[in-house]
């Protein structure tokens, strides 16, 4: 039994569903609302099997009324329940952002800490399969920008389960963003590194702890979500050329583990941020700023480089999309270019 557990591999979708199910079994205040999360198990399979296990009272298919059920999550949380509310694609945030941005994120603060809103918003992010401008965005920087939302962006099944259980137990709003291209779906190609060993028992991973996915001495790649998997493949290529990249998986954006980033950059002296969100005003700029603020404590060997979507909506056509969303080769090329740079 214990050996069987040891080698058990789950896809990220299975790990998320399992984490939610275990918390629902433990805590009857937890319930899930969202479009197509019942019979269909969620478009991206994040609630697979839960309807059978918990029934329609706790696994609630909603109308296509994002403002309605996001607002309802806030109201139910204020009454002591612990809703998980699925926004099918993060791109649909536009429909319900008032509930999220002006209420969910701020009510605790505006109440002087008197009110708690333990809501988890789960949502699918990312492109790579030609779903075009309204179904391919990452947008985590939008959510991380407003104070009051914790933002979780896992890159693999093990982390996803631990972070999901942590999210459900948190008394604050948490936006849990899963990239479609690492969920291990049977109908979308995915990066296989995201399917990994997942313990059967419940466990948590604290927020604000980045993970060093790969040790290296030559440069630091700070990244998250599916880009972690791409960066690992890029690092393999680079290693064959004698360049040792250290990869930092941020895992959560809010809270952000600055120390791990700074420690690594202090060691390598070179920073590349690899991001699938838009370039400007986002994660890559934030990480660069954190390093810039510490230049009296650490020594860079080269200017910071940023790789992200070059401030264009995600285009539909394959060659356009492959250009706009950074791919493995682009990460490797940026790393090589960074190795050629010096400060003088």
């Amino acid at each position: 039994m214990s050996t069987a557990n040891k080698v058990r591999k789950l896809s990220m979708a299975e790990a998320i569903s399992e984490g939610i199910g275990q918390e629902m079994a433990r805590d009857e205040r937890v319930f899930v609302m969202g479009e197509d999360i019942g019979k269909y198990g969620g478009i991206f399979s994040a609630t697979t099997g839960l309807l059978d296990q918990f029934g329609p009272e706790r696994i609630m298919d909603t109308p296509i009324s994002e403002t309605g059920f996001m607002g309802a999550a806030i109201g139910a949380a204020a009454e002591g329940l612990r809703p998980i509310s699925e926004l099918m694609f993060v791109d649909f945030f536009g429909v319900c952002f008032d509930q999220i941005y002006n209420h969910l994120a701020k009510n605790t603060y505006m109440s002087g800490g008197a009110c708690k809103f333990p809501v988890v918003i789960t949502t699918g992010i990312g492109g790579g399969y030609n779903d075009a401008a309204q179904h391919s965005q990452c947008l985590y920087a939008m959510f991380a920008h407003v104070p009051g939302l914790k933002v979780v962006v896992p890159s693999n099944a093990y982390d996803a389960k631990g972070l999901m259980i942590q999210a459900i137990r948190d008394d604050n709003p948490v936006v849990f963003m899963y990239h479609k291209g690492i969920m291990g779906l049977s109908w979308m190609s995915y990066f296989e590194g995201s399917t990994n060993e997942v313990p059967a028992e419940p466990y948590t991973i604290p927020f604000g702890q980045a993970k060093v996915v790969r040790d290296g001495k030559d440069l630091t790649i700070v990244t998250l979500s599916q880009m972690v998997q791409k960066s690992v493949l890029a690092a393999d290529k680079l290693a064959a050329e004698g360049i040792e990249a250290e990869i930092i998986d941020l895992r959560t954006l809010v809270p952000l583990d600055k120390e791990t980033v700074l420690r690594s950059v202090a060691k390598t002296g070179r920073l590349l941020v690899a991001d699938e969100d838009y370039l400007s005003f986002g994660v890559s700029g934030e990480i660069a700023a954190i390093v810039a603020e510490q230049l009296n404590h650490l020594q860079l060997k080269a200017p910071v480089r940023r790789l992200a979507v070059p401030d264009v909506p995600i285009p539909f056509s394959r060659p356009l999309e492959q250009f706009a969303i950074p791919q493995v080769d682009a990460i490797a090329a940026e790393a090589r270019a960074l190795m050629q740079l010096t400060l003088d």
Partner: protein
Amino acid sequence: MDPTSEQLLWMYEKMVEIREYEETMAKVYLEGKLPPKIQKGLAFDIGAGPVPGEMHLAAGQEPVAVGVCAHLRREDTVVGAHRPHHFAIAKDVDLLGMTSEMFGKANGLGKGKGGHMHLFDPAVKFSCSGIVGAGAPQACGAALAAKKLGKDWVAVSFFGEGAANQGAFHEALNLASLWKLPVIFVCEDNKYGISVEKSASTAIESNADRAAGYGMPGVLVDTNDAVAVFRAAGEAVARARRGEGPTLIEVKTDRYLGHFQGDPETYRPKNEAQQLRQHDPIVILGAQLRARGELDDAKDAALRSTISARVQAAYEHGRNSPYPAPEDALLHVFAD
């Protein structure tokens, strides 16, 4: 208002064209997406093949598109949703440009940037969106513009019964009625929003009843029949052109295929689609035309072969046209 023979024939031909278009797409879409050519362990790969991404087809829903668009002129606006091909074809959107767009080609309507849910053809005032419920307010805007410009143009918003639960839909209805806008809201009730049955998403039987809450006529067309839609739409469009304000029309229609291609359709009875096909609106209209002496086997075969040639040529055009250069991704964020 009853359709003339010419209008009946137009609707019939357009429905045949739409069906041929959708059925061809269902086949082309599968190219390259199935094992063994895809990642090991996958049953299907949405991002593979010549037409990648999501694909929502409208086979079965043709009467809604043709019954309404039969009354429209080039200057009238149509705003569709994520399942847009039938409206586009009925509004005379450039078939070659639309097809190229779905192949992601440089000569597509959006130069490959938009794809199948985001078709824009300003020449015939057609647009659509992948965000459910987003179209209705925009149709109000087009109607408002017509009013401000002193034209008798109308605007049509097409959307599904699922979209009628979005706040945007309700705000649009109020706005249109308040400002007496020449807009026609057309709800396609195909009984499902992806996997969710209407009875599980909508508090009332008929969306047409919601019109009363906004002070506008609500018309229920309870059969998937082009002539019935034609009659309802004729009155609504005439009313809008006369400056008497909006109408909400609800059509009970049928979705023959999955929500999107590749949909396992586990949420509906296995033979449901097959049963729906027993009431094929194309067959029904064909029979009506035959009864009127407007159609016979020879004429039917001739028009079908012309239409088929046009549709197949559009697919060849899309398939054989060149892709945009990768760096073209950087163009058109802003207007020049």
